[in-house]
């Protein structure tokens, strides 16, 4: 009896400590997810009760809403161009900074600062203005003899503006890469040098494989957060997603459907399609990662 009471008490104490998480998870995540799933099969405008329309929302989305497909296309460009560029840049700078120079701390601070302030409205306002007709980017282009670009008149250029903003904030990935690089023992590089390996070979055969778990982690987290990007598109296009819907990222279109046109059911359906798509993508990344991610413990241990 005493033992049973003891284990009951241990269980109760454990649940008492994590109860805020469980309550929060049920109230703000699990139950809302079910509500959202239900709403995705209804037409609902917040003022009258939801009306069941079966697969109506999904049908409209996939067959009868060119704006939806445009937002999917814009988001895919944004994610699949922006994230690899940002990670490549982060890795490159991390490798450059992985030296024993006394200045490295200062450089790291400067490169990281944009990441810290990047989510703010102030930075989006700044970005909007440096790309304006007479902004510094066009001055810079003209100084090199190129023609100025009308960044707010061309859908592709406007998307490019969003992507450069995301690449500019490579700092947090860079820090994670730097931490990973510090874990690779210098002896490996020395041994490779003795064997006459070129820097490219060292990069391909030592750095990349040993860093691959960190790359996978960065890739997944950055991809998910890129899919949800909202603030820069919202601020830079003043909430319109323009020009010509060129900055109409998925989250922005979802936001407009839900809160400007009160199509709550349609927005819920959009959110579920996104969730399923991200789920599949993450699953595929994890599955294929077995082929390219190298875990040290399998191949010799630390």
């Amino acid at each position: 009896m005493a033992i049973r009471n003891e284990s009951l008490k241990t269980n109760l104490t454990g649940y008492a400590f994590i109860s805020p998480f469980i309550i929060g998870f049920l109230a703000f995540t699990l139950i809302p997810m079910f509500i959202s799933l239900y709403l995705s099969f209804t037409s609902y405008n917040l003022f009258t009760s939801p009306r069941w329309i079966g697969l109506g929302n999904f049908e409209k989305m996939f067959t009868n809403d060119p704006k939806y497909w445009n937002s999917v296309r814009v988001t895919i460009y944004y994610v699949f161009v922006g994230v690899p560029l940002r990670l490549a840049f982060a890795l490159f700078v991390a490798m450059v900074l992985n030296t024993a120079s006394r200045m490295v701390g200062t450089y790291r601070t400067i490169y990281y600062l944009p990441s810290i302030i990047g989510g703010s409205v102030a930075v989006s306002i700044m970005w909007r203005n440096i790309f304006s007709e007479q902004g510094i980017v066009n001055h810079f282009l003209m100084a090199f003899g190129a023609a100025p670009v009308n960044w707010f008149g061309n859908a592709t250029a406007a998307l490019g503006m969003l992507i450069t903003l995301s690449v500019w904030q490579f700092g947090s990935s860079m820090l994670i890469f730097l931490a990973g690089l510090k874990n690779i023992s210098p002896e490996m590089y020395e041994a490779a040098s003795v064997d006459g390996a070129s820097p490219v070979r060292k990069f391909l055969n030592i750095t990349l494989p040993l860093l691959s778990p960190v790359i996978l982690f960065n890739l997944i987290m950055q991809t998910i957060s890129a899919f949800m990007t909202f603030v820069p598109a919202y601020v830079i296009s003043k909430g319109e997603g323009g020009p010509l819907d060129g900055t109409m990222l998925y989250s922005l279109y979802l936001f407009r459907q839900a809160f400007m046109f009160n199509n709550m059911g349609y927005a819920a359906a959009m959110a579920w399609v996104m969730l399923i798509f991200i789920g599949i993508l993450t699953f595929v990344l994890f599955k294929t990662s077995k082929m390219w991610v190298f875990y040290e413990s399998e191949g010799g241990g630390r």
Partner: protein
Amino acid sequence: MAERKASIPEYNVISSTRAQKGWFWRKIKWPIYHIFVGLLAVLMMYPIAWMLLSSFKESRTIFATANTLLPAQWMWDNYITGWKGVGGYSFGHYMWNSLVIVVISTVGVVLSSAVIAFGFARLNFKGRNFWFAIMMVTLMLPHDVVLVPQYIIFTKLGWLNSIYPIVVPQFFGAPFFIFLMVQFIRTIPKDLDEAATIDGCGKFRLFIQIILPLIKSSLATAAIFSFYWRWEDLLGPVLYLNSPDKYTVSMGLKMFLDSESSSNWGAMFAMSIVSLLPVVAIFFAFQRHIVEGISSSGIKG
């Protein structure tokens, strides 16, 4: 060139490639490195410097003189007009509103995350691994999927146009911070717990008196990131705050943008700079915590 040859035998033990390039390369290697890395740093900082210095220019001249960094004449006028704000409230009012949200949210999220993290890291109970796995999944869950239903729930609760929808969820822990603190608590030797338990110390006292003081640094990291996220948050205020009286800094800036014209560029830039000041100040004061937090848990800045 004779010197170059002479240096070869000495260096080919360490690296054959380095030796071929010889003394000349060794001499210019670091200057080239610093020029390259320094130029990149200038390029990264240029937009911020441009906005900062433009805020001291006369509003109408900002774009006419966009190719020069320094103002012809330094003036504070933009800060004075900007501080008067838009929508009938001063910018200070918006700063105060943001500060209230930030402080309440941060206290809530740090305390609750610490309690939860202690439970996961130190207590053995049935279903612990299950709940921990659930937490790791919510860490990756796209927020968009709960956006609409949460809005509906908060509307039904009558919480629209109040800060409740923004601050209340913070009191139930945030997965990133819980994960960060669990990692941290696991590095504390368990002997401490056992010694305390033998002395008749209950779990709650163990948490408050022994663990909590030892994880101060991870509490600070969580507090800093919570500050950043709440201070910069735009979506929450856009959805839930309807009257300018309750607007935050992000909303104040958005109002500047909505009424954008050549006469208020300066004020908009000036207040953008003001809104970044607390963020940058905290960044320089607590850099070590921030770097540690990101490197060890992958929190996004």
